[in-house]
């Protein structure tokens, strides 16, 4: 319509090409043979690609698709876990796939439920159960016991997260609390005792100050005492932890209103801002703490146990400890869970259901616990109190979990969206675009709007 002029000029130019082409027809047939082989090669390549994709599956095996949201150094361990299960259960083939992608994961799972082809197992975090309650299978305690999952063998508070009106929606394999990582070499160099990590704000600031140094004397600091991560995981949860330590919470008991825009919330955020602004123990930019910790640019970071395997792989000298108490009242560290959900209707396919539950029970028991112990805290008490307590890296997290120093976040079907709203406003505060008060009142308003829907 608008640019026909250009086109008509171009196409009339093309006519001469067409005429030439028709006169060259003899040559074209000559070339045809070459083209045919090209086509064949193309087809071969295509079929080879399908083969490479590993869709060829062994006959007679019951395939159990298992989607995971995880995706850092824990990937390799989870793959090993599934590998061992498959090797010891010849009739079952568990296919583990990682759909790591921030907020997109839960949307993808919901779409797949809608599309009618959900995986047989998908894992979710502690705040997610209400999102899926209508779409997943549930169990009574007796049913679970029959499957080999005896609830008295597990950390009781963990299973509370999936309990609703007396039934259990899904199985709980592990606990993922936030805790403190610290570089033991840097501790020693700064004259600090690696066996005595900081337990409260005063100690933390004191330590961090000593650990913030200009190692090469060029006037710029190249080793920071502390650093906050530029990511949804776990920076808003660190803030929430401090809020809870001071007696606050994100939502009220009925989950109908935001309750974080209080003195406790503002103080918590201001403290995090002041790590850089006032105390000068952290850089002004949020950064990737994992990279920085490996690159020895930072002495202490707060994260979940999922980073342990990665740091071990990089031959780091580090220790872990419960998250220090920054708030005013009690120790508290935000903690997620590793929950398996099974889409509704799976029970109807008896064979598939049996295969799925065989794996789920194995993963929750000592078989899976062995692997969970390397990346998270297994919810199985015998493993948690046994090998995990003795593991020098895991013990920091285990001590925290067994001493009541952790809490599970409030669960609401829009919790993911609420966290996203909080996080985006925290980003504004960290970038210096707004004050802590402004950020939290905006976040409060947005949260209340989400809840009002």
């Amino acid at each position, binding site marked *: *319509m608008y*640019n*026909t002029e*250009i*086109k*008509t000029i*171009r*196409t*009339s130019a*093309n*006519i001469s*090409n*067409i005429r030439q*082409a*028709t006169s060259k027809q003899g040559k074209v047939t000559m070339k045809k043979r070459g083209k045919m082989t090209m086509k064949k090669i193309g087809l071969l390549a*295509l079929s080879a*690609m*399908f083969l*490479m*994709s*590993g*869709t060829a599956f062994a006959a007679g095996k019951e395939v159990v698709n298992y*989607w995971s949201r995880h*995706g*850092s*150094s824990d*990937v390799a361990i989870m*793959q090993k876990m599934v590998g061992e299960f498959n090797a010891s259960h010849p009739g079952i083939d568990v296919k*583990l*796939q*990682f*759909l*790591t*992608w*921030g907020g*997109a994961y839960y949307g*993808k799972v919901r*779409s*797949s439920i*809608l*599309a*009618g*082809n*959900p995986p047989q197992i998908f894992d979710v975090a502690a705040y997610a159960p209400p999102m899926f309650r209508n779409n997943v299978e549930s169990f009574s305690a007796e049913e679970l016991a029959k499957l080999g999952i005896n609830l008295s063998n597990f950390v009781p508070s963990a299973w509370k997260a999936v309990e609703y009106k007396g039934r259990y929606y899904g199985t709980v394999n592990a606990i993922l609390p936030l805790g403190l990582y610290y570089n033991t070499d840097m501790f020693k160099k700064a004259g600090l005792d690696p066996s005595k990590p900081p337990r409260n704000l005063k100690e933390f600031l004191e330590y961090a100050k000593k650990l913030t140094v200009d190692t090469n004397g060029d006037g710029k600091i190249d080793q920071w005492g502390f650093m906050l991560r530029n990511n949804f995981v776990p920076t808003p949860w660190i803030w929430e932890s401090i809020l809870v330590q001071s007696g606050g919470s994100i939502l009220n008991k009925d989950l109908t209103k935001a309750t974080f825009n209080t003195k406790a919330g503002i103080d918590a955020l201001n403290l995090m801002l002041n790590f850089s602004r006032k105390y000068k123990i952290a850089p002004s930019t949020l950064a990737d703490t*994992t*990279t920085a910790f*490996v*690159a020895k640019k930072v002495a202490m970071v707060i994260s979940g146990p999922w980073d342990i395997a*990665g740091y071990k792989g990089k031959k780091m000298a580090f220790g872990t400890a419960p998250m220090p108490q920054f708030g005013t009242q009690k120790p508290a560290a935000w903690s997620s869970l590793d929950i398996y959900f099974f889409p509704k209707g799976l029970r109807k396919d008896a064979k598939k259901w049996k295969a799925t539950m065989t794996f789920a029970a194995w993963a929750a028991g000592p078989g899976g616990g062995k692997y969970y112990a390397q990346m998270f805290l297994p919810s199985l008490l015998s493993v948690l109190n046994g090998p995990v307590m003795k593991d020098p890296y895991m013990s920091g997290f285990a001590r925290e979990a067994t001493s009541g120093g952790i809490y599970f976040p409030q669960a609401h079907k829009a919790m993911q969206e609420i966290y996203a709203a909080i996080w985006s406003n925290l980003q504004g505060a960290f970038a210096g675009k707004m004050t802590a008060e402004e950020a939290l009142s905006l976040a409060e308003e947005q949260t209340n709007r989400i809840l009002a829907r």
Partner: protein
Amino acid sequence: MKLNNSLRAEMATSERRTRSAIRWRHIQRLILWLVLTLISVFFLLPVLWMITTSFTPNNVVLHYPPRWIPASPTLQNYTEAITTTRTAGLGRALANSTLVAVATVILTLLVDSMAAYPLARMNFKGKKGIFILVLVGLMVPAEVTFVSLFLMFNAVGWLNSYESLILPVAASPFGVFLLRQFFMAIPRDLEDAARIDGCSRMRILFTIILPLAKPGLSALAIFTFLLSWNNFLWPLIVMTDPNMMTVPVILAYYVASFAQSLDWGTLMAAAVGATILPVIVFLIFQKQFVRSIATTGLKG
């Protein structure tokens, strides 16, 4: 004599002027060429860095200063990207993308040329109205229909299928528009002769019109191929099973997974792998591609 002198002087100045003009033009061209080179560097360097990183082992990928030529080049990253079991491997995604793109191209050419033919060559009731309807389609951003398309495909159980990627693109108003232009430019005499010989319209389209409109068809084919290959949002929405995902969607999942474990080499290998086919297609058919955009074209 006097006249001769002034003439000579004039000639000398004009010669000087042309000479300085030529020199000035040389300098201009040199500056222009330098600017051009800088522009090319701006466009090429990131691509080069992508390729370099893809051959750098993951354990030295964070090396400082950056190495433009990897110290110990490796194909490991490519193997990892193609065979990874974290999500569906890139191999599977490449196969999906190829299948979808080829099917889309074939269907688009067929459907669009059949629609363009009567619009270019026949007189019938409602022709103008239909043509305007097609033109309106050129202005509709497909994205605004994704919510309802998703719900529609869900209702008929077609989420997570190849059809859901192929069909919505096949009826391309742009394609009809482009082919109509080409068809109209083909002289009528050949067709009329065939008609007098009693050929059916369908045969005329396939044996006379289409062979003559090859440049138009190939332009549309390449354009459709690239559009399908690089389609991002719709497959992201509609594909729910990792084994059905196309290259861009799988890449999006790779970023989340491999960037967290700092395996930038693997990520860049995946990016290169995703890019090779369109680049080859582009290099072979550069002319047609440029023409397809020059004639009309749709892209952000």
